C-alpha cells in the first residue's frame, strides 16, 4: 500500500512567478519569503516523494461559470500551465499519475463525494508556483494528481466538507496498491482580500491561530462557516480550505517539520508549513 510521506501547505500569489522569472530571490522584499522554502527543499530531498496530490483552487483558467465544479480531480496524462491573462511565464509540463487519479476517483465516488473528473486540465499559478517553490529547477521529480476546490463562486463547500474530502483522499492513498511515496500539497491563503473596499485586509492573529491549530487541534477551523472564514481571513483567505484538506489527508496526528509566516507578499499574508504523519 502507498505511503503518505508528508504534506506541505503554502500560499500562492501570481507575483511569485514574476519574482522567480526576474531572479529576485535575494531581493530585500522577497528574501524572507523565498528563504522559507530552503528547509522545505531539504526535507523533500530526504522525503523523496514519487507522486504529489495537489489541493488547489483554479482562478478562472480551467473552469468558467458554465461548468463550475465544487470538487474536481485531474485524470490527465499531462498538465500544462497557460498565461492566465497576464502573460505569466510558463513552467514545464507535469506528468499525471493516472493510476492514482482513477484510484482516487473510484474511492471518492464510493465515499459519496460527487467529484468532477478531468481528463484534460490546465493548471494555473496556484498549482505551478508552489511546485516551483518546492523544486526550483523545475525538473519535476514527481508525478501529480490535481484536486481542485471551488473558491470562485459561492456557495463554496464548507470547511467541514473540505476536511472530509481530505480525509477521504488520505484513506484512498493509503489503500492504493502501490509502493509509491505520496506527498500532499495544499496551496492558498493565508489571509488576504483582493476585492472590495476591504481590499488589502490581513488578519495575522487568525492566521497564526489557524497554523497552530493544524498541529494540535486540526479540526478547529471546521467550526466556522464559509461566511465566518471570509470575515476572518478575507475573500481569498478562504483558500485556507486547501490547507485543511491537506492536513486531513495526513491522518490523526502529525509532527511539524517547518513553519514560516511572512507579511506581505503582494496583498497576501504568506504562510508555509511542512508536516509529517505520525499516526
Amino acid at each position, binding site marked *: 500500500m502507498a505511503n503518505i510521506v508528508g504534506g506541505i501547505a503554502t500560499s500562492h500569489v*501570481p*507575483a511569485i512567478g514574476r519574482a522567480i522569472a526576474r531572479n529576485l530571490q535575494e531581493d530585500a522584499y522577497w528574501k524572507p519569503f523565498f528563504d522559507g522554502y530552503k528547509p522545505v527543499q531539504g526535507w523533500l530531498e530526504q522525503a523523496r516523494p514519487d507522486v504529489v496530490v495537489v489541493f488547489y483552487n483554479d*482562478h*478562472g*483558467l480551467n473552469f*468558467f*461559470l458554465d461548468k463550475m465544479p465544487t470538487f474536481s480531480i485531474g485524470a490527465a496524462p499531462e498538465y500544462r500551465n*497557460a*498565461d*492566465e*491573462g*497576464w*502573460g505569466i511565464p510558463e513552467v514545464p509540463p507535469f506528468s499525471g499519475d493516472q493510476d492514482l487519479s482513477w484510484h482516487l476517483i473510484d474511492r471518492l465516488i464510493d465515499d459519496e463525494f460527487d467529484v468532477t473528473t478531468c481528463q484534460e486540465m490546465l493548471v494555473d499559478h496556484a498549482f505551478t508556483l508552489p511546485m516551483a517553490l518546492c523544486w526550483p529547477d523545475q525538473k519535476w521529480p514527481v508525478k501529480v494528481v490535481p484536486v481542485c476546490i471551488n473558491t*470562485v*463562486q*459561492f*456557495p463554496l463547500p464548507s470547511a467541514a466538507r473540505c476536511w472530509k474530502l481530505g480525509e477521504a483522499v488520505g484513506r484512498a492513498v493509503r489503500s492504493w496498491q502501490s509502493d509509491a511515496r505520496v506527498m500532499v500539497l495544499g496551496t492558498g491563503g493565508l489571509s488576504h*482580500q*483582493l*476585492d*472590495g*473596499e*476591504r*481590499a*488589502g*485586509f*490581513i488578519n*495575522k492573529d487568525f492566521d497564526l491561530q489557524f497554523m497552530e491549530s493544524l498541529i494540535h487541534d486540526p479540526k478547529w477551523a471546521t467550526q466556522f462557516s*464559509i*461566511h465566518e472564514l*471570509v*470575515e476572518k481571513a478575507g*475573500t*481569498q483567505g478562504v483558500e485556507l480550505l486547501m490547507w485543511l484538506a491537506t492536513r486531513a489527508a495526513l491522518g490523526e496526528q502529525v509532527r511539524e517539520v517547518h513553519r514560516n509566516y*511572512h*507579511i*506581505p507578499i*503582494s*496583498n497576501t*499574508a504568506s504562510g508555509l508549513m511542512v508536516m509529517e504523519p505520525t499516526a
Partner: protein
Amino acid sequence: MTHTLPAIPGTVLFDGQQARKGYALNKMCYSFNAARCREEFVRDEDAYCARFGLNAEQREAIRARNVLQLIAAGGNVYYLAKFAGILGLDVQDLGAQQTGMSKDEFKAMLLAYAH
C-alpha cells in the same frame, strides 16, 4: 444561505445573485486568458463588449476601468484580474483603486500588518 447573513463590510460575496448579474461580463473577462482575445479587445473595445452582450452598467464599468463598479455590475475578481492584466495593473493597483489610496499608501498599509 449566504444572502441572509449579515454583510461583511467592504465585501461582496460572489454568490448566485452576483453570478447571474455578471455572467456576460465574466465571460468576456474569462476570454482574456487567450492573448488573441486580449488583442481583439484592445483593437475594438466597443465591438468586443457588444459581442459578449454586456449591459450598460457593465459597459460603463469597463470603460471607467473601475473595479468597484465592475464588482457592483456582477464582476468576479478572479475573472476581472484578467481584464486588469490587459491594463497592466497588478493586485496592488487594484487594491489602491478600491480603497482610494495611492499605491504607496496601500503597500504601507499591508506592511503595517506585519507588526
